[in-house]
């Protein structure tokens, strides 16, 4: 009973804050409305006893949304919405896409013959996840590790405007980098 109440509260909260994302003018409010929407989503995940996943969603989404707000406020005009303006573009097209997607997903829920599993649920899903990662799903982790490494390198290449040749000289001959502002390690 109480699970149902909490579920519907979370569902309504997620949709409501999701709508709010597009109704507010301020980048900060939009981002934190989106965060609230994710947290309500995490509530539903906790309800189905996927504790690790639920808590992880809370953990990751707060970090991600705070980092997103940094970029939103850095790049978007008028980030606090102090001047009247609308964040909405191509309303008709997006309405059509949204309605279509909603219809498709709803149809999918009712029309697809979802398989059911008779296997018992694992005692601790977190541990099962760990075992899967160290066993059959090991390749996923390896590939992801390389992808993340590539992300780091690509970010650094694209985002920094001074590289090692500016810092250490054309032949990398300096022992200590020549920077306008010092850092904490290696001066």
């Amino acid at each position, binding site marked *: 009973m109480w699970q149902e109440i909490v579920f519907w509260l979370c569902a309504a909260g997620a949709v409501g804050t999701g709508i709010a994302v597009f109704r507010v003018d301020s980048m900060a*409010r939009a981002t934190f409305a989106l965060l609230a929407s994710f947290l309500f989503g995490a509530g539903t995940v906790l309800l189905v006893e996927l504790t690790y996943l639920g*808590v992880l969603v809370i953990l990751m989404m707060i*970090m991600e949304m*705070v980092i997103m707000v940094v970029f939103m406020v850095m790049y978007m005009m008028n980030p*606090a919405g102090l001047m009247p303006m609308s964040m909405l573009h191509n309303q008709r097209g997006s309405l059509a896409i949204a309605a279509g997607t909603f219809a498709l997903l709803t149809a999918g829920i009712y029309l697809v013959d979802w398989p059911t599993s008779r296997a018992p649920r694992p005692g601790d899903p977190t541990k099962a996840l760990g075992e899967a990662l160290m066993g059959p799903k090991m390749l996923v982790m390896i590939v992801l590790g390389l992808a993340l490494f590539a992300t780091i390198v690509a970010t650094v290449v694209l985002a920094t405007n001074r590289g090692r040749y500016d810092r250490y000289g054309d032949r990398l001959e300096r022992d200590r980098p020549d920077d306008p502002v010092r850092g*904490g*390690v*290696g001066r």
Partner: protein
Amino acid sequence: MIELTPWWGALLLPPVLAAFAVAAAVFDSALTARAAGAPAPRAAAGAPLRAAGGLLLQQRRRTLAADAPLWRGAGITLAAAGVLASLVTPLGRWAVGDLSVGIVWFNAMEIVAWAAVWLAGWGANSAFGLVGGYRFIAQGLSYELPHMFALTAPAIGAGSLRVADVVSAQDGLWFAVWMPVAFLVFLATVLAMAFRRPFDHPVSRDTAGGVLAELSGVDRLVFLAGRWLLLVSGAGMAVALFLGGGAGPLLPAWLWSVLKTAAVLAALVWAGHRLPTVRMDRFAELAWLVLIPATLLQALFVSIVVI
């Protein structure tokens, strides 16, 4: 063995944390008074409570074109996160919450400070506040990964993310003894997440108090209370993860928990009086190139020991 308290245990959690917070604030104020050569150190003991009363009395203020809901929400969010971070921390044999992923829960609640502090800086439409808020995000980017690796070391040692299992795994030997790097990094990052000195750059005087610059009255009181609660929660978790929780001879387990938490809290406050403010333009590289590898090596050492 750690048991879950009935529902009224949840009602005791905030008052217990608040008592620790007041005690820590009193100790902090006594240290300041001693250094300043102010008369009557006994008066210093009452100073935090008198200051809290003064903030109740003080007029609230709203700055021009402030983002009021986000700004006011910041303090309440911080206070709530400070309390909920302690949900899974046992006091002696009792815990209010018991999650199979208690350590991750603590991690998630402590991250809430990222959002709360930035919002407090953003909400006031003040240049100094904004600078303070952004300083805290840079701080978060620096301390968070060492913090997470410091959290995983006891989890690997106990083979569990449940705080109760971590406590009982320290039956023979406290984790602080054979995971000293993780313990010290954890303590440092607790200071960083509660943005207390030496990690107080987001509220530093060079920007007229940073995120605190425009807060007055009860709004300021709630935000500052949240900050102390977060520090207390961090100290409590340090006791559970590294100092054997309520384990100890003679005295009852709850008293050991209280004494250890008080000791950790005192050490954290004392360290704040001894160290200068750490700016992130210096700390970021140190965190990424020294603290992350150090905590990783600690985790490697622990995992080699357990297999």
